[in-house]
């Protein structure tokens, strides 16, 4: 299995604060890779670096052999990386369908002039985009909700729309930043199954996830971070057994006992 994404010695600091310090890991093609770590480990910063919203101070991000860390986000999107956001960032005032159509910008397939004049070819392209957007909504389980105002929907529904919007760019690599935050077990499993179906369709997924059970169930591989570095890589089960991971996640054994004593 070759690697679709390689992160090499990535470093990013904000002022004096180092969010990512010398991080290296890779995402195998066709895998669902989990990125775990305690709060403040730098996971979201990694997603921002890979998607181009931030530029690293040092190090490389390599997509399919091409270095992309210096490219602007729109060029990275065009090369096949799409993402969602930890605290859902949908466009205010847009309907569900419009959100997804905005995500389909890269496949508009017609010049502005043709689109402006409403030439038959442009109209056909627009209809094709709308059809595709509807299919994506169906895929994420939001069929029939296209005309609703996205901000009037529930949090879980908004997360699904955000995934559909990201899928609109036809990514090879999908970055999900805590896709199940604030969801109950049933909704989370739904997201997990969706991720699996995307993988089975040939997509590669890198997801930041807190929920250990979900990572165990749905991730093929896991990278665990702490203090901006990779602690360990491997299968979910191996990673969770790693003593440093245990410590990072659950604190030291004696800490845990002390906390229990406090209760």
């Amino acid at each position: 299995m070759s690697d679709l994404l390689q992160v090499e010695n990535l470093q990013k600091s904000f002022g004096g604060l180092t969010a990512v310090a010398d991080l290296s890991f890779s995402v195998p093609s066709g895998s669902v890779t989990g990125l775990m770590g305690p709060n403040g480990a730098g996971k979201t910063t990694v997603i921002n670096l890979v998607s181009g919203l931030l530029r690293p101070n040092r190090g490389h991000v390599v997509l399919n052999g091409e270095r992309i860390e210096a490219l602007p986000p729109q060029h990275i999107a065009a090369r096949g990386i799409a993402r969602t956001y930890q605290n859902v960032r949908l466009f205010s005032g847009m309907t569900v369908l419009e959100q997804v159509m905005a995500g389909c910008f890269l496949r508009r397939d017609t010049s502005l002039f043709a689109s402006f004049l409403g030439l038959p070819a442009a109209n056909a392209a627009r209809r094709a985009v709308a059809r595709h957007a509807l299919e994506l909504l169906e895929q994420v389980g939001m069929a029939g909700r296209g005309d609703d105002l996205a901000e009037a929907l529930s949090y879980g529904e908004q997360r699904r729309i955000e995934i559909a919007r990201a899928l609109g760019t036809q990514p090879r690599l999908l970055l999900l930043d805590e896709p199940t935050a604030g969801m109950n077990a049933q909704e989370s499993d739904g997201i997990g199954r969706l991720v699996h179906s995307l993988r089975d369709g040939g997509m590669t997924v890198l997801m930041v996830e807190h929920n250990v059970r979900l990572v165990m169930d749905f991730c093929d591989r896991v990278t665990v971070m702490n203090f901006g570095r990779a602690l360990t890589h491997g299968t979910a089960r191996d990673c969770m057994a790693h003593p440093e991971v245990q410590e990072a996640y659950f604190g030291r054994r004696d800490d845990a006992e002390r906390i229990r004593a406090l209760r």
Partner: protein
Amino acid sequence: MSDWFQDLWAAYRSTLGFAMVNAFFSLSTYAVLSAGILSFATVTYAAAGGFIGTQLALQAHLPVLLVLPASALVGALLAFAVALVFLRLDSHWMALASLALVLITRVVALNATPLTGGVNGLSVPLFFPFAALAGLLALTAVVFWRLSNSWYGIAARAVREDPAVASTLGIPPRRIQTIAFVVSGAVGGLGGMTLALMLQFLSPETYFINIAFTMIAAVVLGGSYHWAGAILGACVFTALPVIAQAVLPEFEKVLNGVALLLIMIFLPRGLIDPRGWKLRRAAKSP
């Protein structure tokens, strides 16, 4: 009955004319605002379009119907140049910089005497039928309607709401905003020329900061999330002083200001608000 109508027409004909001219300016302001940019540079495009258009008519004897597209072209080219410089700034600075550009425009207009007539101004002895003005505005509205329905429309909305998210979807924010600037410039240049035709006189004071401020107010008042809001806002904003003058001539301006203040506080998203409609619809249907 017909006499009554004729009187009314005579009294408010010019008000309607100015409302239409103002609609060009507010559409120009809306064009950039709809891509997330607060810019006052419409005044600059208008001055360039107005003065150069007028000179083309007076010196080169170009017919008015050719002068108008020329004015739009002048505005568009100028706006493109402005975009190259301004799009490097962040939004707060861009607003300030465009305000500065308006001040600079006036000084340039005052000193470029061969083009503008300097302090003495420039008389514009050209005739432009009322119906043609209405037709031109209708044509411009069609352009905005088509733009809002093209892929540009949805991309511009995305950039306005969240440029960072838009860029991760492959939408290039600066390119979208450059298009917005060019559209703004073309419509602004056109508006500048129609104002010249309407006033039949131009001076450096014609295109000044008051246009910028009233037009931005008109757009927000009418609703800055739909092109029709810009036109409606311009109409209301042109009518408001006329009404205020009829009601309380002594405090006409105070009344204007208070009305604007109240509308802004109670209708912050303007008179035409597609999002509000959708929200109400969502609230009704279970």
